């Protein structure tokens, strides 16, 4: 073996060692980074919820002449704008498909003598025309980019003769699903409301309304009229009057897309009201009111109805329509008219410039209040904690309170702990302290075998097999569990009286015998007699007491979830009890204490940190359990501390809703936020439990 070769070999060895070190170090860091990325990703998706939305200008165009954007519509060629230059000239501006440029601007000439109003309904434009001879005409405008808009007469009616048009200066037309509404205001501030049928053109409704206001028609086809004494709702099916005394006359009344609520806009404030129908009693309830320092120039409701923009003093404010909170964003925006193009884009006109703005971070309109407060939702009688993110109807106010979910998780875990702690601790005490080694060798793995059963199997059996049984025997099972310890007590007394001595480990057999006999007795007392017609007295009595309160889902959930976490509690508690140093136990026995005394005074005290740790870890494990909860509970989010109500936990909610949520929507981000809550909670609990365990080990580390 030449020394040359050996020398080379040694160099190779060192080099390989270094290379391996680099490989392992980078591999190790890669893995750790991947795990940390998990946490980071959760944060990064939820983080946008924290900020506030803002506006960014993305495009601007020059138009001929200054003016106002009165309406925005959508046709096959893209968006178009009804633009009023001056009193008598309006034009239609067609934006290209991607809204990157203006493809045309056509001028519609209208005679100055005629006054007209543009109405936008469900992406269609209508032009209302009031001729001096008292004829009201409504034209439908169809827009094509390269040609002039076509005016097609759509509705025409002659106003009643007694209406003196000369006196009416301000008039307004709105279209509902089957009505055309006309209001006009006289110089002495009186208003008259006329409602014509769209189909028959007959005057169906006429009323003097003092100081009335008409709202724009929502896509649902409803229009609201504000009266000092209440709100008139011209609905798709019918007209209803909701009585409520209003003190001040608002500047505008604006309807929510779903028509369940509306806003009253004042000079320096906004109020939101909801329609409520309580057992046939129609009422209007105020959800929130907002007051500002400066006058409101304009108020624009987003197409989805969840946020509003308030333009005041050249500042833009975001209003969360659910919580009533105002978020101020930076930009000073000069505008004379504002229009929502779609949910994410805004058109602002100023002088002769038309600008398009993009809304950055719309999810940030969700605030802590949206998630945690008791809010007054549309259509509700009072504020409540609700989680409801989807519904059958078109316009649905999403309700994002995480309170029901958090409560649900806590309740479910608490129920599980109720079952698992006695079982787990009892078994741990028995297994770790009373039982001789050769029995423990088999008992401990036997209980830990439960851990190996997949939770989906436990959930399945609980849902399919246990639930029907519980339905039938609910009260019976409950009582059985309650009275078994007492029965055992009685048996213990009897056994003692008869001088039965029990060797170590044989108590188990005795306990089995006791339970078996108790079960038989119970069954006999409980079951129906042979004819099946009369229930035993015991059964009847119990039914009358418990029928009203018991909920089988809760009981089965407690049993199934508790059963699933018993091995966690058992394992750690048993270790804690078993690891209490023999030396101090022996010292206790040497001083004449009984087994139970040593258990109570020495062992349990020494193992206490471990026992607490076991309870915490069990709770954490139940908190994070998904499958059992989905399969067994009713999955209804209810915010109440009542244990017998249905629950929906954070985990079940994620599994059910996340696959359907749209990426980067507020719903999506909020779900990630709940995942973060889950993560944080279990992480903290686990850390505390681990620290407790380390401390207990340190306390007795020196002893053997």
């Amino acid at each position: 073996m030449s020394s040359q070769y050996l020398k080379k070999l040694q160099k190779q060895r060192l080099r390989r060692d270094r290379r391996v070190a680099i490989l392992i170090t980078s591999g190790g860091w890669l893995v750790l980074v991947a795990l940390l990325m998990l946490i980071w990703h959760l944060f990064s998706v939820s983080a946008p919820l924290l900020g506030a939305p803002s506006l960014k200008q993305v495009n601007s165009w020059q138009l001929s002449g200054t003016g106002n954007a009165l309406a925005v519509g959508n046709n096959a060629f893209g968006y178009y704008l009804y633009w009023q230059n001056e009193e008598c000239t309006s034009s239609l501006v067609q934006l290209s498909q991607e809204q990157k440029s203006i493809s045309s601007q056509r001028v519609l000439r209208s005679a100055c003598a005629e006054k007209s109003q543009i109405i936008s309904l469900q992406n269609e434009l209508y032009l209302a025309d009031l001729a001096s001879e008292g004829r009201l005409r409504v034209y439908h405008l169809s827009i094509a980019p390269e040609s002039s808009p076509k005016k097609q007469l759509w509705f025409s009616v002659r106003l009643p003769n007694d209406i003196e048009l000369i006196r009416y200066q301000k008039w307004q037309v709105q279209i509902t699903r089957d009505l055309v509404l006309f209001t006009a205001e006289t110089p002495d501030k009186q208003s008259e409301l006329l409602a014509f049928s769209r189909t028959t053109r007959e005057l169906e409704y006429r009323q003097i309304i003092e100081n009335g206001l008409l709202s724009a028609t929502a896509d649902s086809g409803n229009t609201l009229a504000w009266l000092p004494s209440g709100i008139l709702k011209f609905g798709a099916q019918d007209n209803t009057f909701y009585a409520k005394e209003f003190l001040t006359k608002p500047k505008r009344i604006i309807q929510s897309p779903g028509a369940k609520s509306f806003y009253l806009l004042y000079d320096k404030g906004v109020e939101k009201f909801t329609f409520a129908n309580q057992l046939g009693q129609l009422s209007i309830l105020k959800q929130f009111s907002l007051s500002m320092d400066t006058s409101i120039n304009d108020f624009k409701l987003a197409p989805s109805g969840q946020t509003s923009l308030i333009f005041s003093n050249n500042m833009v404010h975001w209003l969360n329509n659910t919580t009533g909170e105002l978020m101020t964003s930076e930009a000073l925006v000069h505008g004379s008219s504002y229009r929502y193009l779609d949910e994410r884009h805004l058109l602002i006109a100023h002088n002769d410039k038309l600008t398009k703005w993009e809304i950055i971070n719309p999810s940030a309109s969700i605030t802590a209040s949206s998630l945690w407060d008791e809010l007054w939702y549309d259509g509700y009688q009072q504020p409540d904690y609700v989680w409801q993110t989807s519904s059958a109807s078109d316009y649905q106010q999403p309700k994002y309170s995480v309170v029901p979910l958090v409560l649900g998780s806590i309740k479910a875990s608490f129920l599980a702990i109720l079952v698992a702690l006695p079982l787990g601790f009892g078994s741990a005490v028995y297994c770790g302290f009373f039982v001789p080694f050769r029995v423990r060798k088999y008992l401990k793995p036997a209980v830990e075998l439960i851990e190996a059963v997949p939770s989906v199997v436990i959930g399945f059996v609980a849902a399919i097999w246990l639930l029907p049984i519980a339905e039938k025997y609910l009260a019976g099972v409950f009582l059985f569990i309650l009275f078994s310890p007492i029965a055992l007590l009685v048996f213990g007394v009897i056994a003692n009286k008869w001088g039965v001595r029990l060797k170590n480990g044989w108590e188990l057999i005795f306990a089995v015998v006791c339970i078996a006999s108790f079960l038989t007795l119970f069954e006999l007392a409980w079951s129906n007699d042979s004819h099946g017609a009369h229930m035993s007295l015991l059964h009847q009595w119990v039914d009358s007491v418990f029928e009203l309160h018991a909920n089988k889902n809760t009981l089965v959930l407690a049993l199934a979830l508790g059963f699933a976490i018993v091995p966690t509690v058992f394992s750690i508690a048993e270790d804690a009890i078993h690891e209490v140093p023999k030396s101090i136990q022996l010292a206790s026995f040497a001083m004449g204490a009984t087994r139970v005394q040593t258990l109570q005074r020495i062992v349990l005290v020494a193992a206490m940190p471990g026992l607490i740790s076991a309870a915490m870890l069990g709770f954490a494990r139940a908190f994070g359990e998904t499958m059992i909860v989905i399969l067994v509970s009713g999955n209804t989010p209810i915010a109440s501390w009542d244990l017998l109500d249905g629950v929906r936990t954070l985990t079940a909610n994620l599994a059910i809703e996340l696959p359907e949520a749209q990426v980067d929507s507020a719903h999506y981000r909020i779900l990630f936020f709940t995942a973060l809550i889950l993560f944080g909670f279990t992480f903290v609990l686990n850390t505390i439990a681990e620290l407790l365990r380390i401390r207990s080990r340190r306390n007795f580390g020196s002893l053997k």
Partner: protein
Amino acid sequence: MPDQSTSQKSLKALSPEQTAIEVRNLSLRFGKKTALRDISLKIPKHSITAIIGPSGCGKSTLIGCFNRLNDLTPDCQVDGKVLVNDKNIYGSRQNVPILRSQVGMVFQQPNPFPMSIYENVVYGLRIKGITDRRILDDAAETALNMAALWDEVKDSLFQPAMVLSGGQQQRLVIARALALEPEILLLDEPTSALDPISTLQIEELIFGLKQKHTVVIVTHNLQQAARVSDQTAFLNQGELIEYSKTDTMFTMPLKQQTEAFITGRFG
């Protein structure tokens, strides 16, 4: 009777060819704690040197410097020089694994690898890259013979090493170290975990090793030091108190501390 100072002087006057290990102003810190303070001595070749002292005085740390095993402890700071074969092993160009294959070590607790006896013995050679079975076999037989274990295990070379008794395991571990044919063999309390009979066997073994190897043995057993070693170094609290030929050290210790330790008044 030779003069005490003569004995010490003769040790100090060793030439490099006669010196196996020379320690020059060696100081060692683990973090803030100083374990060794300014130690200088020369260990002659082909002899047995014992290092004695009370618990925690730095004996194991000192020999840990000779094969740089102390590097494995974090925050280890070394000042001074340790010269093996006239080369400073704390110099920048030292190949540590090679050094360790040249300076063997045996620990207090027998620590055979969970492999067969044969594999244990040839482990060091395999590491070095030697794969030729004949060479390995030869080396194994030689080493086991030197460790006085060959006769006992020659028929069960491929049994796991765990089946051996404590004393046998320690001898196996010595054989393992010897298989690399190190010039220097460091023994850290090699017999303190063994029974008296095994202890004697190992002491005999050590004695026979000095023909071809330089042995440094750390021991807390003064009788063992007196029996086995040629020169003895007495360490206390990281400082070298006295270093001279064994017979003079034990009969006429120069320093009062040494005398107090040897007579059992402390430590």
